[in-house]
């Protein structure tokens, strides 16, 4: 059909699809799923770091962390708005999340155990997110791509702050240096898993790339992240817990070991260290807030009623 041809031409030009444009149902569903998953990741991602706001060890760090977690709520807002341009409401998506029918990034199912984790999440987790997201600024769906531009700018800022926290701690006491290393040891492999399963085990990648929703394969992005992180670790003075990690001059890349994909699958299936906790937290907050949202909407109705009758 004409519409289909127009859509494909737009994609081929690397131009944006906009909300008013015709698009195949499968494309719409895939974009909704990906944007929602991304939005959920921002919201769930508030928990592991947010848990340390009340325990931040300096007032300066407390302000930085509070502002960062607030930014994540903001990212969630843009991304839910982007999804809403495709005709699904924030309320619906939230219900999909708390009923376990939509996913969020596997990384947030790992616990934060020390303040160093705040730095490590900034450095490695936000770093991995940026690797994933920078190409998404050129994603084919317009509102998503534009949201990503804003998100990426703030994420880079967060990543630098995380790295800076770790740098400062590495200049501190022996205990602090040990804290940083221990934290990096825990987060390295889960960070690598953030890019998803290996390419030969990632059935949706091909179609998403054809549609210009995704711009790179999982393994491609993972390699980029490893290559980027190794020199940063040297600057920091920490090591990664991977005996196979070494520079391969022939490939012009670092070789590295295989993540524990069984663990990854357990996490994706809901049996990770914190899946139940994260969803229960979101569900409780959502339910506890129901009466407030109802009150606000009842009040708005009354106000509208008054305006009409005036």
């Amino acid at each position, binding site marked *: 059909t004409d519409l289909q041809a127009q859509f494909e031409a737009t994609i081929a030009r690397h131009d944006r699809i906009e909300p008013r444009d015709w698009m195949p149902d499968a494309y719409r569903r895939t974009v909704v799923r990906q944007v929602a998953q991304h939005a959920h990741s921002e919201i769930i991602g508030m928990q592991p770091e947010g848990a340390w706001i009340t325990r*931040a060890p300096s007032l300066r760090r*407390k302000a930085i962390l509070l502002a960062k977690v607030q930014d994540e709520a903001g990212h969630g807002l843009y991304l839910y708005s982007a999804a809403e341009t495709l005709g699904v409401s924030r309320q619906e998506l939230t219900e999909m999340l708390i009923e376990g029918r939509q996913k969020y990034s596997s990384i947030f199912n790992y616990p934060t155990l020390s*303040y160093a984790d705040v730095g490590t999440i900034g450095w490695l987790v936000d770093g991995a997110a940026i690797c994933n997201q920078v190409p998404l600024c050129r994603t084919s769906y317009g509102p998503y791509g534009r949201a990503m531009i804003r998100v990426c700018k703030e994420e880079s800022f967060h990543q630098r702050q995380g790295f800076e926290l770790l740098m400062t*701690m590495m200049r*501190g006491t022996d205990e602090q240096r040990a804290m940083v290393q221990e934290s990096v040891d825990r987060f390295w492999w889960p960070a690598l898993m953030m890019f998803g399963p290996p390419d030969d085990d990632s059935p949706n990648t091909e179609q998403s790339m054809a549609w210009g929703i995704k711009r790179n394969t999982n393994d491609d992005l993972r390699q980029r992240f490893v290559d980027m992180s190794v020199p940063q670790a040297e600057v920091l003075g920490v090591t990664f817990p991977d005996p196979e990690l070494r520079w391969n001059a022939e490939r012009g890349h670092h070789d590295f070991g295989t993540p524990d994909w069984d663990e990854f699958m357990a996490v994706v299936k809901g049996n990770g260290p914190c899946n139940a906790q994260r969803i229960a937290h979101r569900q409780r907050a959502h339910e506890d*807030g129901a*009466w*407030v949202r109802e*009150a606000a909407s009842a009040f708005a109705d009354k106000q509208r009623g008054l305006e009409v009758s005036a």
Partner: protein
Amino acid sequence: AAELAAYCLMLGDDALVLSHRLSEWCSNAPDLEEDIALANCALDLLGQARLLLARAAAADPSVVPVLPEGSPVPAEDALAFFREAVAFRCHRMVEVDNGDFAQTMVRLLLFSTVRLAAFEQLSTHADPVLSAIAVKGVKELSYHRDYAARWFVTLAQGTEESARRLAAGLDALWPLYAELAAAYEAGPAADVVLDQVLAVAGVERPDRPPRAGTGHTEALSRLLAEMQVVARAHPRGQW
């Protein structure tokens, strides 16, 4: 100078403790917009606390706890993280648990109304640092007060449940209001504002006597246990 320091500590501790309470809402608010708004208020108060604690330390260095030699902890952090509960000068109003969203909004309304009245007076204070802090704070506190007042009216007139919860929150906090208003010498200005909000909301001023005693609540030491844990574990740490 000791008097100025004590006064700044009082203002700073109230801001620090209420900021902590507001930050507990993070990822727990009824909606993303409220999550962001509450974090804004918490950040503003945290900013006020930092300036006020630093001013207190400069005015009277003897208020700053002594740390192990070679500790790189700045004065604002020594004050926030290395004092015991009984050394804090905050008021019981800011210490008690958040309760539900209604009670949180009631506290924010009462607190920001009283503090705004005080900061308006302080903006011409003889100490230029304190007056500058107050000038900046007036803008922030006006926003907090308006935000809380909007929710106060919304909840009062929203649903039966929200009105009931609002009334319960007001009843719970009212006994602590007199102590706070007296400490801030808020005077009739604050009362006028409050009465306006109550009138718009259609809520009666509670008929409850002030709570006896002075000093702190049991909630404060629990709050500090959490707030200070990492800093205390690393008295020579750099952050």
